[in-house]
């Protein structure tokens, strides 16, 4: 009797280009690139999912308004209160509106709104798409001749890219009103004098750079949330990981972009 040949338990050694982790990292970058390329391809090709885009705009924009408004208002008040002593030491309390407008419009409004949106919307996208992925709903959509990427991903990314600049405008306005409330209480400055002073130091470039930043942040949050959710694996654990990764990645990328855009804007200022 010929003994059956032994099946080797050890798998053949995998070959990596640099190392496993490095290769995975670069592979992920490539996959993100492919994901973004696919987004642009699908976004500008018919049919367009306008209804779903508006639906997502409602979910992403309108439902976040209360949260970002409250955050912006508190940011305005707190920043004003914290800045006053430093300026008062120089006898320059009248410069508070200028300082606040520069801080809120140039930096705080886009950044705070983006971070809030990353936490609320990015995690929501990651979790929603992740759960749909692990429960094979996305596969079911493909089977039913619906383009899941166009319906789920393109609409979400488009919605957050459009809505975040709008939310930034709200946050900026409400933040400035919060700052005015505090300044009026302490310095009895009138609304007109406050806005005259506030607009005296900012320029069109500041406003357009803020809107541009918000657009970039929105796109980043959308891409991070949708990519993590769309590529979720390993069941419910994968859903949680996708939601978490979406927030962390989005926030990290927001700060990187902030640095790059500020450098770029200062170069052309």
């Amino acid at each position, binding site marked *: 009797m010929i003994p059956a040949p032994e099946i080797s338990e050890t798998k053949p050694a995998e070959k990596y280009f640099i190392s496993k982790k490095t290769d995975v990292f670069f592979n992920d970058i490539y996959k993100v690139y492919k994901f973004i390329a696919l987004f642009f391809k699908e976004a500008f090709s018919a049919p367009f999912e306008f209804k779903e885009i508006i639906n997502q705009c409602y979910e992403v924009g309108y439902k976040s308004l209360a949260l970002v408004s409250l955050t912006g208002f508190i940011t305005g008040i707190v920043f004003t209160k914290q800045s006053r002593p430093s300026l008062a030491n120089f006898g320059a309390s009248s410069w508070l509106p200028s300082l606040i407008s520069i801080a809120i419009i140039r930096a705080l409004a886009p950044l705070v709104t983006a971070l809030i949106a990353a936490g609320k919307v990015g995690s929501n996208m990651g979790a929603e798409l992740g759960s749909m992925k692990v429960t094979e709903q996305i596969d079911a959509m493909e089977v039913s001749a619906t383009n899941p990427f166009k319906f789920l991903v393109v609409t979400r990314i488009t919605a957050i890219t459009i809505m975040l600049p*709008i939310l930034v405008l709200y946050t900026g306005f409400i933040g400035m009103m919060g700052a005015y409330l505090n300044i009026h209480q302490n310095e009895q400055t009138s609304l007109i004098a406050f806005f005259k002073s506030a607009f005296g130091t900012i320029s*069109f470039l500041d406003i357009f750079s803020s809107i541009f930043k918000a657009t970039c942040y929105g796109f980043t949050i959308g891409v991070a949330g949708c990519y993590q959710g769309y590529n979720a694996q390993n069941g419910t654990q994968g859903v949680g990981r996708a939601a978490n990764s979406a927030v962390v990645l989005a926030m990290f990328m927001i700060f990187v972009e902030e640095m790059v855009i500020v450098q770029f804007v200062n170069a052309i200022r």
Partner: protein
Amino acid sequence: MMTIKSNRPVIVGMFILLGLAILVVTLFTLGGEKKTFVKSFTLNALFTDVNGLLKGANILYSGVKVGTVKKISLYGNAQVLVTMSIENDAESHIHKNAKAKIGSDGLIGNRIIIIYGGDSTGAEIAKNDFLTVEKAVTTEDMMTTLQANNKNLLEITNGFKSISKKIDSGKGTLATLLNDPSMANKLNGTVDNLQSTVANFKAVSASSKNVLASLQDFSGNLNKPGNSMNALVTDTVIFRNIKSTLAQLEQASNEVTQFTVNLKTTSEKLNQKDNMAGVLLNDPAAASSMKGTLQNLQAASHKLDEDLEALQHNFLLRGFFKKRAKENKIDTIIIK
């Protein structure tokens, strides 16, 4: 549920529209503040130093913002050409003889351009004109002046230092004043004297006050109509009389003076021997001669008296004297 879903596009539309409204209002407010949408013209100024002036900096004319800096560029030999965008409304107010200088928005604020001066003697400014530039006082200039002040302060403090050293070592009057106890006693005495002097002054001033009050009363009375002093002061007739009296007095005094002069001349002549009265008064020989004459006259008159007595008893004249004695006797009886 369906109703809610159908409302979503409306809510999203409103949400976006409101957001865009905030953007539009912001842009227009900013444009109004930056004079972006205002029709403007260009002015130029050549500075040697712009002290960190930035593009977009405000331009003030008589303290009113009239435009912004459009362009800053190096020009010629170490000069800076500043191109300014000025709103058209200000064109008729700025004249060619106006000047430009670099100022500061507050003590530590941004650099701005200040246009000032100019009047109707100069023509109105035109597009692309060059404004006359005046060098403004910069922070560096202030620091230089401060540095000079510091040096002066150092010299002054050094002077004080040497003075205090001298005082401490007991040299000079001031040191004696500070260190000698006898000087302190003298000073105390002086202060006591001063105190008593001041007390006297106080009393004098109180008296003066009373005198002044009396004078005030007197002047009040003078001003009060109806009394003689007031009449004296205010009546023009009396004044005229007094004036004429004074004139007469003056004339009289002149005459008295003339009389005195005459008297003096007379007395001088009396002292001399070239005239009769002078000889009588001054010449002793004449006096003795005069005395002899007088003695002779006395003897002669005695003899004459005796002769006349004899005549009374002469029979030729005796009747006349008897008749006269009788008449005298009758007059005496009548008087009684």
